[in-house]
């Protein structure tokens, strides 16, 4: 049996590509969507050669929300699964004083991803099946001084995914929220991440495939994050506001 295609929005991202490899290895055709997709030709060839599946490239800009419906129409077929790995970290210390930069971070992590998933949600609902996967972040679980613009946008995205899941649960459309914790990628290159809390992109890929197959709702990649976030969320605000995190 041939498996349904997986669409990766943010197809150049380390996490997005790793998810593409995991699904391709399981036999799913892949559509990689990114800005400047022609630069992904080597990744396309690699995916196709390794896994023997069809891989196509598509131009996609998450910020150009007006183009999203046409983008979906132009895909070779409506995918069975859509994964949104689009995101941007920004530079908190600078962005907090620069409204335009802050808006760009908010749009790339929330507005753009939410808009494209809304369109895909309607199409999946009309078809009567499908899976939507949003890569959000633990940063959205509680705002911290060091990344609250990114965190707030991710919090919005997480809430949006939860609402979509609630709306579509009876329509046979499944929504998975991924809170990866730290992942060693281009986004975090140069940061000093604690090894025990840091996953590889490949581990995220494997976890997402597994969670999609099992119809899980919200996953952390490394189980220890469930504990870490429970502790962080339990700290009373009067104490939390004085912490350096």
């Amino acid at each position, binding site marked *: 049996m041939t498996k349904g295609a997986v669409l990766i929005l943010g197809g150049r991202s380390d996490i997005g590509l790793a998810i593409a490899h995991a699904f391709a290895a399981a036999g799913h055709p892949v559509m990689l969507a990114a800005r400047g997709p022609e630069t992904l030709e080597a990744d396309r*060839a690699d995916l196709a050669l390794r896994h023997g599946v069809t891989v196509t490239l598509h131009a996609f800009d998450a910020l150009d929300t007006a183009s999203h419906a046409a983008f979906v129409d132009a895909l070779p077929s409506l995918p069975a699964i859509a994964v949104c790995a689009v995101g941007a970290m920004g530079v908190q210390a600078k962005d907090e004083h620069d409204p335009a930069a802050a808006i760009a971070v908010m749009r790339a992590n929330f507005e753009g991803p939410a808009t494209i998933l809304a369109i895909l949600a309607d199409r999946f609902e009309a078809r009567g099946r499908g899976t939507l996967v949003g890569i959000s972040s633990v940063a959205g679980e509680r705002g911290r001084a060091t990344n609250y613009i990114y965190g707030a946008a991710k919090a919005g995205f997480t809430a949006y995914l939860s609402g979509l899941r609630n709306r579509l649960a009876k329509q046979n459309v499944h929504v998975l929220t991924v809170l990866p914790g730290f992942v060693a990628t281009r986004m975090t290159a140069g940061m000093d991440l604690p090894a025990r809390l840091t996953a590889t992109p490949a581990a995220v890929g494997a976890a997402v495939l597994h969670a999609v197959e099992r119809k899980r709702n919200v996953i952390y990649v490394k189980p220890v994050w469930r504990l870490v976030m429970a502790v962080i969320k339990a700290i009373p605000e009067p104490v939390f506001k004085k912490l350096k995190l």
Partner: protein
Amino acid sequence: MILSGWGRTTPQACRVSRPRSEAELAARVAEGGLIARGAGRAYGDAAQSAANTVDMGGVNRMIRFDADSGQLVAEAGVWLADVIATFLPRGWFPAVTPGTRFVTLGGAVAADVHGKNHHREGSFGAFVDWIDLMGPDGTVRRLTPGDDLFRWTLGGMGLTGVILRVALRLRRVETGWIAQRTVVAPDLAAAMAAFEGNADALYSVAWIDCLAQGAALGRSLVMLGEHASVAALPGVRREHPFTVPARPRRALPFDAPGFALNPLTVRAFNEVYWQLGKRKAGPALVPWDAYFYPLDAIGNWNRIYGRRGFVQFQCALPLASSADALHELLKVVSASGQGSFLAVLKRFGPQAAPFAFPMEGYTLALDFPLHGQTSALLDRLDRIVVAAGGRFYLAKDARMSRETLWQADPRAAAFVELRDRLGLRAAFASTQSERLGL
């Protein structure tokens, strides 16, 4: 970031970058003192440079495969394990493989690694059609076996430039199984006779009991192998000839305490292994992974030696002096009681590349946990090898002195001359190359 080799005896703080494009890499090369790092499976300090280590992990895409010729073109950071996972199910296997599949193509070329078929087919480089190599000025050249620089890059340990892409010929196989035959050799002479008498076997390698003494000195289990044909498989396996039973992957959760591996445990292990092996003599069908990569099933098995790590000793000996030198080496090792259970003896065929490790004759590989007396023992072994006209494997070395290398390997002078002439010395250097004066 602290880097070390697989033996974990060379920890060093290194600046590590992970370029994703040729432009990013060229910028690193321009800074000088660069060494490429693949999977870090070399035992010592060959793949580390304090100032400028380049992790090739971000350069790991497969580019194309020609199913007629079996030629795979891939980026240098692709692991041999990926090649097998992708192509064994389609009937192809690496033509040469070291004893672990967790190495990169770049690392395999740079060390010109050898497998169990060296006596018949040579080393990794014999199956490479071309490489793309980035030179000291950041430009990339496609080199073929006819090019001087191609041949010096085989065994050049990353000191001739950064390998970006490799065109590699794979071997057609009918199954994922190896038809193995084990020959019991009660002493060294019998082991060597088994190699010489089975020169036509595609694969041959011996586990040698390096603690056996007296009349049993050098007793070995010589394992011969061929890729099994579909017809050789039992009926139930013929439908899926590339599928072998999954082996559980284990990992050592922590460093074994130092006492876990003392001479007594090794001696006991070797005795048991020998007795069991003797009983299993004769023909058997073995899955590819168990045959080529027995250690890969245990995640970071290098931790078994404890925190201080371990060192490998691997030498190549000329055919004429092999018997005497092996005898002497084994006598010293067994008397010291510091043997390893990963002792391997293997027949080498002739070697083509000018700075690659193998030479026609025999190779012996041993490993020793690092402690107080290890260093004196290794120095003694070094001297025996040098006197016999042998040389040492840089991919395994973590501690050799500059003097020893230059005594053992007169080719070093020509290698350094080449590095000077092509302006490679300032651009490419590893902690190992500094130590050894390369």
